């Protein structure tokens, strides 16, 4: 019944560790896209044009309420239908980056809305342009309260990378599937993947909590 094989575990460990690298790269690259694009989506909802705000808002809602795995398929398969061929990595990064950009835009929005009214008025009183106002007054104050939410989504994106396996990105689950079907053994690869996920996400969540506390103290909150 219970036949865990240690020699097999050691044998597959190097492959799993190199796949962990791919998982981390995917999570990191996806997160960078999400952080930049998310800020753009948040700012786009603050233009004077009601039509733009409404469109961006609905787009964010749409992406947030549909499954990421479906969006990954959509990006990967719809491109070629119109003559655009994207590699699995490319489409994966676009899909996961866009998905989390929508989540992060909500986090930024909360941060921006938490900047006191006096700061906005002061920026106007100093005759700052809109770009100056956001770059030098609003965003520096909007990011610190948003950091906790941003950190949570970093762990979230890491945990969602296994979905990239469906279009053939060689991350952890994809590698575990391959090992499993080559050797007809699923116990060790899947269990090891679970342990690797825990070993990364638990300390990461702890570090984010520490960092959040540090930032709050720094700001005197």
């Amino acid at each position: 019944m219970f036949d865990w094989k240690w020699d097999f575990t050691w044998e597959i460990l190097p492959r799993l560790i190199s796949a962990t690298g791919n998982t981390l790269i995917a999570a990191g690259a996806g997160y960078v896209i999400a952080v930049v694009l998310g800020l753009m989506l948040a700012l786009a909802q603050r233009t004077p044009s009601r039509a733009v705000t409404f469109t961006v808002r609905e787009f964010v809602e749409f992406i947030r309420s549909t499954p990421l795995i479906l969006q990954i398929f959509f990006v990967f398969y719809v491109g070629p239908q119109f003559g655009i061929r994207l590699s699995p990595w490319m489409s994966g990064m676009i899909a996961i980056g866009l998905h989390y950009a929508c989540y992060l835009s909500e986090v930024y929005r909360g941060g921006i809305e938490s900047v006191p009214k006096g700061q906005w008025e002061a920026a106007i009183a100093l005759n700052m342009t809109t770009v100056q106002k956001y770059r030098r007054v609003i965003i520096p104050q909007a990011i610190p309260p948003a950091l906790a939410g941003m950190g949570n989504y970093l762990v979230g994106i890491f945990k969602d990378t296994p979905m990239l396996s469906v279009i053939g990105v060689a991350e952890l689950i994809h590698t575990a599937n391959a090992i499993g079907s080559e050797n007809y053994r699923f116990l060790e690869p899947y269990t090891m993947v679970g342990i690797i996920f825990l070993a990364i996400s638990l300390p990461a969540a702890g570090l984010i909590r520490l960092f959040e506390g540090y930032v709050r103290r720094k700001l005197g909150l």
Partner: protein
Amino acid sequence: MGFYDFLIQYWPRLLTGTGVTLAQFLLAAVIGIAISLCMGLMKLSQNALMRGAAVTYIEIFRGTSLVVQLYWIFFVLPLFGLTIEKFTAGYLAVGMNIGAYGAELVRGGILSVPKGQWEAALAINMSPAQRMRRIILPQALVSMLPPWGNLMIELLKGTALVSLISVADLMFEARQINASTFLSAQVFGAALVIYYVLARFLVTPFMRWLERHMARKLGRA
């Protein structure tokens, strides 16, 4: 093939898939709510063993990815002599995953009930079970319903992953149709719209209604 012709031809399969998705959603919600309550209460228990068990459960399910949990339950548990049929494994995995997130909401909700309410229940000689059931939980429920709305959307999106173990849900039907017709934009577009409609016009309004209904029941509307 145009979108309209596509729908005429394939709507029955998309509809049966949607039915399976909804069934998975409802069953996973029942499991998720039961586990949330159980683990949330256990985490507040005086007994260190109960607390430890709840913390372990929550950290394991929140620290690993739903895909990993799903594969583990479906492919690894049979090796321990516990074979679960794929449909059951699907909603079980999704429900257990959501339960870990819900447990934190339950815990937060219970802690948010003012101390006076606990003391009042004690003063009128209620047993701990009566106090929890009649005084604390109803008030905790009202304060935690808004985040539960978000969690239910996450749950609906999570059910799309059961397609990975070949449960014939909407995601699975979409993939099958895509594989045989290559009408990717049509089929994945249609699936995205269906998920969006379910989330936006079924789950969200129901949760809003529930929030209002519960608030009214407690005389807070």
